[in-house]
């Protein structure tokens, strides 16, 4: 019996050591929580900043599109038929009065004036897909939830 008591006494920890362990464990948990919170805050803040940038850029695009339309209309007004005729008259030009004023000559390689081709911007060859990466839209919890509910997907997998 004595030997058992001695053995227990020899391997039991001192009360102050138990307290330190508890406090250590508590602090470890606290640090972990702080870390997760910090990462979450960081990711959320970045996402919010980028979101604001996107909203701002959208407005910029809209403004630029309107500005383009304005400039195009202004240019068309400045080069309208009436304006050009008035400017030509100011510069001393006048319409051809008779056929005698026109001389036709053969110009080798001359290509007849062609009708204006429409400026077709390249059309998307594939059906439209979302180009905004989930990294900019997904919160940390969304990401965790996705991983939890998609256990088959390895964490290292790169999604298109």
């Amino acid at each position, binding site marked *: 019996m004595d030997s058992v008591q001695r053995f227990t006494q020899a391997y039991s920890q001192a009360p102050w050591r138990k307290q330190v362990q508890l406090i250590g464990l508590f602090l470890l948990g606290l640090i972990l929580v702080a870390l997760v919170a910090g990462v979450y805050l960081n990711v*959320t803040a970045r*996402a*919010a*900043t*980028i*979101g*604001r940038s*996107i*909203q701002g850029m*959208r407005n910029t695009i809209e*403004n630029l*599109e*309107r*500005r383009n*339309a*304005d400039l*195009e*209309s202004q*240019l*068309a*007004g400045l*080069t*309208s*038929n*009436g304006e050009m*005729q008035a400017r030509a008259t100011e510069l001393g030009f006048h*319409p*051809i009065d*008779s*056929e005698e004023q*026109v001389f*036709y000559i*053969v110009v080798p390689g001359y290509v*007849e*004036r062609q*009708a*204006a*081709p*429409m*400026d*077709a*911007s*390249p*059309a*998307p060859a594939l059906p*439209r897909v*979302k*180009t*905004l990466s989930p990294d*900019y*839209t997904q*919160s940390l919890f969304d990401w965790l939830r996705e991983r939890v509910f998609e256990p088959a997907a390895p964490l290292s997998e790169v999604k298109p």
Partner: protein
Amino acid sequence: MTQESSWRYTTLGLLLSAMALFIVVQMVRIQLSPQAEVFRDQGNAYSGGWQTIVPARGEIFDRWGHLLAGNTTVYEVGVELSEVQNPSTIALALNAIVGADHDEVYAAASQEPSSTAVYRVLADFVTEDQKTRLEQLAGEMDVAYQDSKDQKRPSLAGLRFVPHLQRSYPEKELASNVLGFVNRQGRGFFGVEEKFNDLLAGTPQTVWIPADPNRVEEIPDIPPGASLTLTIDRAVQSEMEAILDQALATSGAENGTILVMDPRTGEILAMATTPRLDLNEYWRYAEVFVNPTPFNRAVSKAFEPGSVFKVLTMSTALDTGTVKPNTPFLDTGVFEIGGAIIHNWDGGAWGPQDMLGCMQHSLNVCLAWVASQVGADQFYAHMQKFGIGHLTGVDLAGEVPGRLKIPGDNDWYEADLGTNAFGQGVSVTPVQLVTAVSALANDGKMVTPRVVKSVLDKGRVYNTSPQVVGMPITAETAHKITKMLATSLEVESSVALVDGYQVAGKTGTAEIPTPLGYTSSATNASFIGWGPVDDPRFLVYIWLEKPTTSPWGSVVAAPVFHDAVERLVVLMNLPPDNVRKRLINGQ
């Protein structure tokens, strides 16, 4: 730790745990309660909003890429009610600069801000210039009254400007009857704007715009409306409008139309008509187009064409083999058909003629006889092949089909065959007549008239192509009638002739019927012609309504054709016939 402090800590722990448990229970209860939906809706209301994105309306260009219809920025002026300091100043400023109703603006700007009254629209379609003046005024007031402690000091605080696009027409009146216009609700009226409204307007989409930047979502790329390139040549259109205006002034005609078409393709190069409207001020429509004036007479006004119709009658007779150019005819000045007596335009008898002479002197008696020889069945079958009485399918809004009475109709009589032969008792539109005559200028092939050359939609270009809608006559007949008409103009030394270019054509003078018959002295004077005859590149139709200086097409319309073609050949880079043939032969 003493017993006492242990008890205190235990109590505090239990209390905090109970509070935490209470919070959790409340959370679960609220989540499951019927009010949860209300809370969710409240949350959603502040998280963003549904916004309808209206794509920019497609642009319209002429065949060389000059902008005829574009867009420009205008502003909606609103007020943030919580920021308003002096509604009276706002009302006065908007009334003076924008022309808004003072009382309405004052009432809107005076509203007390609340959860349901945050922002009010005061005016819309405010121009950039007006917006700048309002902003300048606001800045000047801020500077002038910055030290004032008066709560009611003059101020435009609270004004907001929301930009959006509005249709603009840089060429103003030019080709206005072809283009049509767009109202402030974005709907196209008349012309191309109405005909292609759905294409030009694009497809608006309603998307969710989150207010929370954390929930930013990609806005779908909404393509603008389709853009159109027209077959209209801006320079030709402008010249034709100027020539038409001049012709109206010199002839005293009430209205007029000049139509220029490429007979090989059906492309309309110019469609000048009156009245015209500065499309940037479309609200003057009712003032300019006094009821019941059609917006575009070239497609919407049917009338009796008169003698220009004889080219179709003679083509039919030649095509059916009823007559040849040298078939003799003795003109006694009178022809009776179905009980009706037909006389010539001058009431005279022109004696021995051939078909060339009949066309040259525009003899009603001869053409009525020709139609009688062709027979009603063949005559009307050919007229229908020419598209008379049917829509041409021109890509413009508001086309009317005209009227061709045919045997079997309640109001058709045999006499109609005689009068129809010289363009009486039948109504056509200018575009219909030009389409029919395109067969004569294009080896017998009749083409659909069109004003749209290509469409740019969602990054793809769709080119329209010439459409042959029928071959009412053979190529041989087309050449014969063209030669006859060219010769008749030359023999007659018509004022329609253009130096250096051989053209074929026919004048027309039609009495205008009234409800009591042909009792009015007013006429429709016209001329239709094409050239160069060996390779027709243009087909021009002139129509002057009710000229006062002379009723005759040969006097008032033929010179207009001459003027139009003289300018047209320069603008189209068409060398004179001898130069062209020399160039083709490589000499």
